[in-house]
Structures are given as C-alpha cells and as structure tokens.
C-alpha cells in the first residue's frame, strides 16, 4: 500500500501536468505516436502529452543512456530494448510498474503469465510493458525453392542443407558461385547473432535462452549443433562470405534464396520486389526430431516510465492508453509491427487487418512462441563471446563447434561473474 501511495503523484489541484513522451525515430512510428498523442490530448486536456521522437544518435540506446546521465529523460519512452532494462533497474532509473494497483490486471489482460515473467527484472519487480514484438522467421523465395524441389520451405537443418546443395550454383559460368541458399552478415558484432545463432538456438531448444537463474546454460549440445549447421553452410559455400551492409540486397536480387528476418521485411520487400517475385515466411529451421511448436527469438520493444517523472500515475494512465486495442490496431496498420497481446489473431478488431495483410498472419501465429532475451546487465558481452567464437568456428573454420561453444561458455561465465 505504501508503494502504491509512493507511486501516486503529489500534484495539487492547481499544478498543471505535462508529460513528455519519446517514441522511436523511424517515420512510421513517429506517425503512429503523433496520432496516439493527438487523440490522448483531445480526450485528456488536463494531462497534456508532448511527443518527441528519440533524438538522433548512433543508436537510440546511446541516446537514452546520455539522457539518463544528463537527467534529461522523458517521462515515457516506448522503444526500450528489454536487454537494457536490467541496467536501468540496477541504476534505479525506472518506475516500478507492478506497484500500481491495476498493473497485474492491465498486463494480464494483454498477455499471458509466461510473458509477464519474461518482462520481470532480476529484482522480482516489473519495470516495463512489453509493447511490440518482431518474431524472427525465415523469408524465402518460393520460385527458387520450387526449382530445387521444395514446394514447401525446408523445415529441418538437413532439409535446408539439401536445398542449399541444389540451389548454390554458378549461373553465369564464370567459375564463381553467384546464387546461394541464404545470406547473413559475417561480422562478429554481438547484435548480428540475434539474426542467426540465437533464433535457431531458441528453436532447437524448444524455447530456451542463454542464461537460466543467473547461470550460463547455452554451452550444450544444442548450441554445438547450431554451430555445426552454420559451419557446414559456410564450409560448402552455401552462404556468401560477405559483409552485407550497404550492399545490394541479395534476397531481392534473387541471388540468395532466403534470409532470417522480421516482419519489417514485408514493407521493404513489397516496395522493392521485382515483378513476379514470390516470397513467404516460415519458422527458422530446426534440427531433425524437434516437434512443434517451433519457438524463435522475438525482438521485443517495451514501454517504460523514467523515475524522474513528477507524475508517475498520469504517465501510467498514458501507457495504458497506448496499449489499448485501438492503438494496437494503429501499431499494426501504421508501423506494421505486432502488438504483444495474446488475442491478436482472435480479436475481431484486428481481423480485417490480417485479412488485408495475409503475410503478417505467419508472424502473428509465431508471436505466441517467441522468447526474448535474458535480463542481465552484461548480456551484450555474453553475445559478444558467442559472436567471436561463431566467427572463428563457423565463418573461418578455425575451431571445431565443440571447442568454440565451450570457449564461448567459458568467457560468458567470466563476464557474468
């Protein structure tokens, strides 16, 4: 009760409230935020919200960090990567949302107990509302897979390797391969592993993440299997050894038959696809014998309220408004991103959207089986350890998968300590 009272604002009747809300700075989300804020301001003239896209910087994470240090954070921020939440919680920068008396009902109205636990901080409290998710799936070129005998996309590692063997070819006869089964960035940056190793590890393990109860658990046979799968791909030249940034789009040029990606790919592909280009999405490949449901990595973004707000109660009211059904529909329509809610496919309000956007259905189905990232302030270093070993073993064959996974685990443990 004390906590609830502590979170209530102490505003007097005469004091004017003003909340500052930062959204992501991509144009779709700016448009979405403007519409949401305009409506809120019409409905709640006594609690005006000022919207501003997160200021430009190398990454929004760095901008938020600078704002925290400079004590210039907004009241509400809607593009928080859950991987960063633990650090801000440790630094006592976020409002504890589960101290609001209606938090549980609001959150459980939106998603399951399991999701609620995923959003929990290491201290046992919850400081974020999981707002949107981008399940990571395999986008594939239907024609290219059909031509190598796959009417349906490959489901398992062995099927994928079979398709790869047939699809990898020297089309123009110059002695060099110019068509591959897939493409991924070979650089050893920690975040690149969120789009190759990590979703495949989650899928192969039936939904396990890297850390369990504060202990590193990924250095196991499953991870070795994923390293071995990717090593076979690079060893046989099924993926190009390319750094893919600012290069031509291998997938849209039909020189790569597939790619591991999220729902943002739909808008991009629809805009730039060549005539007659056929594509679809499927879950990422799993080792033989893994049964449905197939899990994957869900690239979540959360809404948080910063502790320097003078009006936590009003900020929480605005957060509830943001995650209402009407605004979730706007999130789908304007930003082509999935709201984190259990009823996204059943709710009649969203039905017409999915009827008109059938490609999003695969992501909405997959959204029920996603895992985020572990809540640890040193998670980036854990990913960096995996990334370094992944590069050495998978891309350059300098280590065996067993050695690489063992060394990654060893280094990750040191980091956690």
């Amino acid at each position, binding site marked *: 009760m004390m906590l609830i009272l502590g979170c209530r604002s102490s505003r007097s009747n005469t004091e004017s409230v003003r909340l500052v809300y930062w959204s992501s700075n991509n144009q779709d989300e700016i448009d979405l935020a403007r519409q949401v804020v305009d409506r809120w301001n019409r409905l709640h003239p006594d609690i005006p919200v000022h919207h501003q896209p997160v200021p430009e910087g190398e990454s929004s994470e760095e901008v938020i960090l600078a704002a925290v240090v400079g004590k210039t954070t907004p009241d509400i921020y809607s593009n928080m990567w859950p991987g960063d939440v633990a650090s801000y919680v440790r630094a006592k920068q976020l409002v504890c949302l589960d101290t609001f008396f209606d938090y549980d009902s609001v959150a459980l109205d939106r998603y399951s107990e399991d999701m609620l636990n995923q959003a929990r901080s290491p201290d046992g409290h919850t400081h974020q509302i999981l707002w949107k998710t981008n399940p990571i799936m395999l986008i594939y070129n239907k024609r290219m897979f059909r031509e190598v005998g796959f009417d349906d996309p490959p489901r398992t590692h062995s099927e994928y390797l079979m398709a790869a063997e047939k699809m990898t070819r020297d089309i123009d006869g110059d002695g060099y391969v110019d068509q591959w089964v897939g493409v991924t960035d070979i650089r050893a940056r920690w975040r690149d592993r969120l789009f190759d190793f990590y979703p495949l590890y989650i899928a192969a393990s039936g939904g396990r993440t890297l850390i369990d109860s504060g202990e590193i658990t990924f250095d196991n046979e499953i991870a070795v299997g994923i390293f071995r799968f990717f090593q076979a791909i690079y060893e046989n030249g099924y993926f190009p050894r390319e*750094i893919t940034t600012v290069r031509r789009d291998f997938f849209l040029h039909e020189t790569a038959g597939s790619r591991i990606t999220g729902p943002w790919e739909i808008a991009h592909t629809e805009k730039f696809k060549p005539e007659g280009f056929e594509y679809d999405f499927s879950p990422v490949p799993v080792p033989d014998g893994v049964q449905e449901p197939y899990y994957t990595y869900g690239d979540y973004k959360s809404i948080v309220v910063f502790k320097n707000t003078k009006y936590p109660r009003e900020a929480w009211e605005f957060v509830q408004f943001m995650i209402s059904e009407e605004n979730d529909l706007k999130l789908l329509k304007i930003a082509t991103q999935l709201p984190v809610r259990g009823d996204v496919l059943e709710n009649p309000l969203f039905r017409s959207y999915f009827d008109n956007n059938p490609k999003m259905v695969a992501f909405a189905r997959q959204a029920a089986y996603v895992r985020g990232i572990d809540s640890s302030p*040193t998670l980036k270093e854990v990913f960096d350890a995996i990334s370094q070993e992944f590069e050495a073993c998978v891309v350059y064959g300098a280590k065996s998968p067993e050695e690489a996974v063992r060394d990654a685990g060893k280094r990750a443990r040191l980091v956690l300590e």
Partner: protein
Amino acid sequence: MQESGPGWCWNEGHTVKRDRIGYVFIFPYAFHFLLFLAFPLFFSFVLIFHRWDILSPMEWVGLNNFVKLFQDSLFFKSLLNTLVFLVIHIPLQIVVALFIAEMLNQQIRFRGVFRATFFLPVVVSGVVVSMLWSQLYAQDTGLLNSLLTSMGLGRVNWITSARMAMPSVAIVATWKNVGLYIVLFLVGLQSVPKSLYEAADIEGATHWRKFIHITLPMINPTMFMVVVLSTIGGFSLFIEPVIITGGGPMNSTLSAMLYIYKQGFNFYHMGYAATMGFFFAAIVLLVVILQRKVVEKDVTY
C-alpha cells in the same frame, strides 16, 4: 620604479587593462581546453582506479584495471594490429604522397584541379569513404574483384581474409589522408632552391639522381613532420575498421582505439577503457619521442 624587460609598461593601470584584453582573447581557447581536454583527461585519470558503468556510482578498484589489462590478450593483439597497420600505412603514405606531390610540382595543365582532386578525400567524412571502399572491396559484387576477373585474374578476399584485411584497411586510410601529405610535400618541394637543380643539370644529372641527391635531403624536415603526423594519425585508427570490417576477420583489424571504444561504449567498462587509453597514450608518446631522437638527428633545416 620602472621595470625593464619584455613586460615593461609605463604604469600599473595600463598593464592590468592590457592583461584583461589578453585574457578575453585567450578565453575561447582556454574554455575549450579546460572543458574538452583538461577535464576529460583528469576525469579519465580518476576512472583508472574505478569500475564505472555510467549508470551506477563509481566503485574504487585500486590497480585492478591494470591487472586486468596485463591479462587481456585481446588488448595486446589490438596493439600488434595497430603496429602492423603503421608498418604498412606509413611507408605507403609517404611513397604515394611524395610521388603525387612530385608530379603536381611539374608544369602541367589543370594542376590546380588535380591538387584539389587529390585533397578532396581529406575533407570527405571518414564514414562515407569507408562505406564507399567496402562496396569496392565486396567479394562477389565489388568493383575491384570484377576488374580482376575481367583481366582473367582470381578474386581477392580483400576484407574477408585475416591476412588481407589489414592491408586493405591501410589502403583506405592512405587514400583518405594522402591529400594532406601531398600538400605538405608540395610546400617542401617548392622550397628547394632551383639553383641546385640548375647546377645538377649542368653536371648532366638524371631526374632520379636529382631526386635522390637534392630533393630528398632538402625535404628532410617535411619528411620528419609527415612521419610524426602519420604515426600519430595511424595510432588513432578507428573509423575504417569500424565501418569496413567491424574489427574482423577474427580480430585481425581490431585496432587499439576500436578495442578501447568497444570496452567503453559497447560494454560500459569506463574504468577499464580509461586505463587502456592511458596505457596506449603512453606508448604513442614513447614512439614519438623515439622518432624525434632517431630521425631528428638526420633532419636538415
């Protein structure tokens, strides 16, 4: 009593007034120096003895950051990588800059246009230059490999082989900065007295002999400056590996600056990054002092 000497003034009031004007003139630089150089330097020194992730309060760790540094094999690898880069970059920079400067010192048409063109990459953003070169270096779609295959030669793994990546990065850094050194060499070349060449012409000296026996000794001070500047510039190798290779393959282009940045701004180990920064600065200082001692003996002014 009147004082004599350089600070002499006819009365005290006038001296104070004159000093105030002086302070006003030095204020912008002093302000910049204190805020952006002296304070960060002092703060970094304090950080050496602390663990700090920006968000949490600083924690005193004594000399632990140094212990960690001497056990960190990746830091020493990054130092070695930087050394490899310098060994390739400095001679390449000098040879290319001097060759082009010599060409531009001749009476050729559009000389001004050529000079401006060669200087252009210096003023272009390092990020843009690096992105451009990463396209040229692309293994399967890059222009360089297309040219090689059209000539019947094999493709080169410019940035995806641990052996080739650092030389490729050095080529980019050289291309980006060579314009500045061309200008310096041009100034040096134009200061060589023409009478020396005329005398050599009378003696029947070839172009090569004139270059070796007149030009090179006469531009020795410029050469020394170029070596020192490109050494210091080379030690701060950062943008090219960040954009082109990300420090790979297998950390072969991980420069010391990039590693320090990664520890500081990716993983927020500010104390450790500051420790590496000071250690690295000490190495740079030592190298520059050595250069002065070794090279300066031969410099002709």
